C-alpha cells in the first residue's frame, strides 16, 4: 500500500495486552501535535474493538486499520 502521508510516531505494543496498546496510543496523542498521525501495533483482539471506539469517542480520526500477519496497525490523526 502506498501512503501519501507520514506517520509521526509508531508504537509497537505487540508484547502488550488490552488495554496496553490503547494506552500507548492515548499517551502519544496526549503529548502529540494536532494534525500529526500516530500509529500503534497490537496483537490483542480487544484492541480491534476498543481502539476505533476510543478514536470515535475522543473525536480523532482513524486514518487506516491495516491487517498484517498476526497483528494490526492502527493509524490515528490527532484532530484537536
Amino acid at each position: 500500500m502506498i501512503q501519501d502521508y507520514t506517520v509521526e510516531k509508531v508504537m509497537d505494543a505487540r508484547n502488550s495486552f488490552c488495554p496496553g496498546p490503547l494506552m500507548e496510543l492515548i499517551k502519544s496523542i496526549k503529548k502529540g501535535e494536532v494534525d500529526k498521525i500516530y500509529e500503534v501495533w497490537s496483537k490483542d483482539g480487544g484492541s480491534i474493538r476498543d481502539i476505533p471506539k476510543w478514536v470515535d469517542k475522543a473525536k480523532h480520526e482513524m486514518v487506516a486499520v491495516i491487517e498484517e500477519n498476526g497483528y494490526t496497525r492502527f493509524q490515528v490523526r490527532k484532530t484537536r
Partner: protein
Amino acid sequence: MSKNKTKVLILGGGTGGVIVANLLGRKAKKQAEVTLISNQENVFYEADLPYRVFDKKSLDSQFKPVRKVVNKRVTVLNEEVISLDVENQSVSLKSGASIPYDYLVIATGAHYDYDAVPGFKESAYHFYNEEGIIELRKALNDFVENGKDGKVRNVVVGIADLPFKCPVAPLEGAFMMEHFLRRKKIRKTTNLHYLSPIGGAFSIEQANVHIEKKFKKKNINLHTFFNTETIHTDRKIIESLEGDEIEYDLLLMVPPHRGQDYLNGTPIIDESGWVNVNIKTLQNEDYPNIFAIGDAANLPVSKAGSSAHYQAIATAHNLIDVVKGKFDISQVKERYDGHATCLVMTSLTSAMFFDFNYNRAPFGLGYISNRLFYYFKKYQRFLYFYGFLSGRM
C-alpha cells in the same frame, strides 16, 4: 564474607524484594552474598487498604519490620538508593556509600506523583497510603453528616492515570462505597459514578462482564473511556481527555503512579520510569544481569502483590540456578507466565476471586461473589506475612 561469593543485590524491601531475598538466602547460601536495601523499615501489606477506609481499624497490623521477615543470612540495609550505575554495576546510597553487584534485582515499586494531574492534590481523596486513608475517612464522615439534609450529591470514583497498582482496587472502592452509603442510609440521595479510562470497567473481557452486571444491579453509573485530564477544584468538575465532564461532591481517585526517581537517566526505563524487562524472564535485554519485578517493572500484567510474588519466585529460581552454575545468565528460563490472582471485594461482606495469566482468563467459579472469598480476603494478611513472604508458598 567470602570474596568469591556472587554478589546479589536486591533493591526494595516490599513484597517482591523480600521473597527473592528469602529464597536466595535459603537456597544459595554457599554461592551468593545477598544484600537487600530498602528505605522503609517495614514491609507493608496493602491489599486491605480499601477496606480500612470503611472499618476504620488501625493500620498497625498492616506492616512488619523487614529485618524480621527476611532470612538472617541476608544483609539488610535500611538506606535510600539515590542512583544506579548500570555500566559499573553499583548503586549509590543517600548515606554516601556505594554498593557493587554482580546481579541486581529491582523491586522498588512505584511512587505517587500527585502533581501529574492538575487539581489532584487540591481535590481528590484516595486510599493508596496511610495519609490518604486518614484524610478520606474525615471527608467521608463529613459527607455522611451533610447527607442528612436529604440533598442529592455525587460520589465519583476514578483513576488519575494508567498504569496503577491493583487494577481492582478502585472497583472495590466503588462497591464498598455503595454498601457503606446504604448502611448510612444516604444511598438514595447519592449518585455513584465510576470513571474508567478503558472501554469497560475492567480490562479482562470475561471478568468485565460480571463486574458490569454488578454495577448495573447496584446502580453504579459507569463512564468508559474517561481519561482524567484536569480536576477543576473551583467548579468541582473532572474533565477528561475525551472531552467529557462530571460533577463531584466527593472525589475518590487513584493517584498517578510513576517509577522511582533514582532510575531516571538510566538506559533501562521507559518514559514513565518503569524498568524494561522481557515479559517471561523478567530480565533487562541490554543488561542481562539486571532483573525487575513487581510494580517497578514494565510488564503487561497487573501491578499487584500476587504478580510480584510469582515474579519474585521466578527470578529467584533463575538466579539460584545461575549462581550455582547450572546455566549462564544469558540462558535464564522463561519462568514467569503472567500469573496474577486477586480477591475483589464486591461489597463490605462479599468478594470474587480472579486467577489469570498471559494466556488464560480467570476461572468461572471465581465470578460468583460470596462470603467465603470475603473471609479469604479478610484473613489473607496472615498468609502474606507468615507464608507468601517466605517464598515457600
